[in-house]
């Protein structure tokens, strides 16, 4: 008798537990939910053309492929005559560059000069003056805090940046990083802090800076010369 009672009580408890569990399951309702999103903002640096090239002091020659604002920089220029028949003081090409970034940037440049000449009087890298001009951070969305560091000496045609060598008589660009021989390997030309504030990419503003290239017409060895310059912007 006591054993039967005990068995019945156990069954009753089990049944009750089952009913309670079932009830809880039936009544269980989800009232919350989550959406979790992850994302990345990567460093971004960009160089484009800042607009049309200005060629001056040339004799013959011309701008073969001009720069177009906010388009990839792929300018091609015929500097024309660089011998003494060109009586201008300098042949100068001014190429506007446009930079944008969401991080500190470094603009480097690599240059090469090849000439068909074979003597010491042929045009060499040191005969091609180079420098970056006034840096402009203008327009909505452009960050104006911080200072850009120009590693060049600016416009190479400035009197302070070159002169005739008293011994050889050859005109030389003498200031720091004022000619292409300083850029035979990738070398910093400009660096600075973040350029753009938090604005959409469709914002067309940015940092603009003119790159000056200048050659003093001289009694160079006759021949053809090709000057190639590559700019690279990085986010260190």
């Amino acid at each position, binding site marked *: 008798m006591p054993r039967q009672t005990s068995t019945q009580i156990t069954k009753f408890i089990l049944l009750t537990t089952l009913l309670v569990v079932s009830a809880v399951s039936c009544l269980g309702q*989800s009232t*919350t939910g989550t959406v*979790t999103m*992850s994302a990345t*903002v*990567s*460093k971004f640096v960009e160089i484009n053309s800042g607009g049309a090239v200005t060629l001056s002091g040339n004799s013959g020659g011309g701008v073969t492929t001009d720069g177009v604002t906010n388009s990839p920089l792929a300018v091609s220029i015929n500097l024309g005559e660089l011998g003494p028949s060109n009586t201008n003081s300098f042949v100068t090409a001014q190429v506007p560059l446009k930079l944008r970034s969401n991080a500190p940037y470094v603009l480097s440049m690599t240059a090469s000069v090849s000439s068909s000449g074979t003597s010491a009087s042929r045009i060499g890298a040191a005969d091609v003056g180079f420098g970056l001009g006034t840096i402009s951070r203008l327009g909505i*969305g452009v960050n104006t805090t911080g200072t850009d560091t120009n590693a060049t000496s600016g416009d190479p045609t400035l009197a302070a940046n070159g002169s005739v060598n008293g011994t050889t008589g050859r005109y030389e660009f003498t200031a720091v990083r004022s000619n292409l021989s300083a850029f035979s390997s990738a070398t910093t030309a400009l660096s600075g802090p973040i350029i753009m504030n*938090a604005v*959409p990419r469709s914002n067309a503003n940015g940092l603009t800076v003119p790159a000056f290239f200048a050659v003093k017409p001289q009694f160079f060895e006759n021949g053809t010369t090709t000057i190639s310059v590559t700019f690279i912007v990085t986010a260190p």
Partner: protein
Amino acid sequence: MSKSTKGILTTLAITAVLMMSAAATYAQTTGSVTMTATVSNFVELTSGGAVTLTGNSGGSIITDGTANSPLAVVVNLGELGPSNTNSFVKLSVPLRLRSNVTYQLNMVSTVAGAGATSFSLKDTDVGFGLTPAARPANLAPGVDTNATPGDPTVGGSTDVNGRWVFAGANSTLGAYAVSGQVLTGPRVNQAVSASSNSNLTVPAIFAIKPQFFDPAPAITITAQFTVVAL
């Protein structure tokens, strides 16, 4: 068996005999069964189905929504910097609501890991909105009140600093740093079975305009929805 036990059993037996005699003497003609029950407030939020991710660069859906399952979606939105040339990175998450009473859907959100400068991605840079449609005929009648302006990719413009601003009030996660109402309405379901599939499905849309934000390798954005009965 003890004497006292025997006495108790004898007394019970005599009482039973007397009661049976009485019942036989006075015929019982009525009876009653009394039942009590409860219908509690019921509100439910689950996933309304698969999410939709568009405009992403390198993103993906990690844990998708499954209709009528708990909402626990995980999505990688990918690149939000200017290298993503799409107009918006947009995520649409279907929410599924059921209730037998007036409901209120709330949301609370956070943005972490984006940096702390003025150019870092903020909660105000994450657009948000619900786009509920009119209730179908198989639901209880009524109008749901949307506290958001709807699809955040509609409208909007750049401010004086050039930064993108989503249009309208409650249009970004900046409005939900603390729990706030996003949708409310009368009972959703008619008196149908709990197994009925009738429900109110509402897309929740999150959108970010890729911009020159500060670099940040691991941004986490969370949004938690809670439905309560009013």
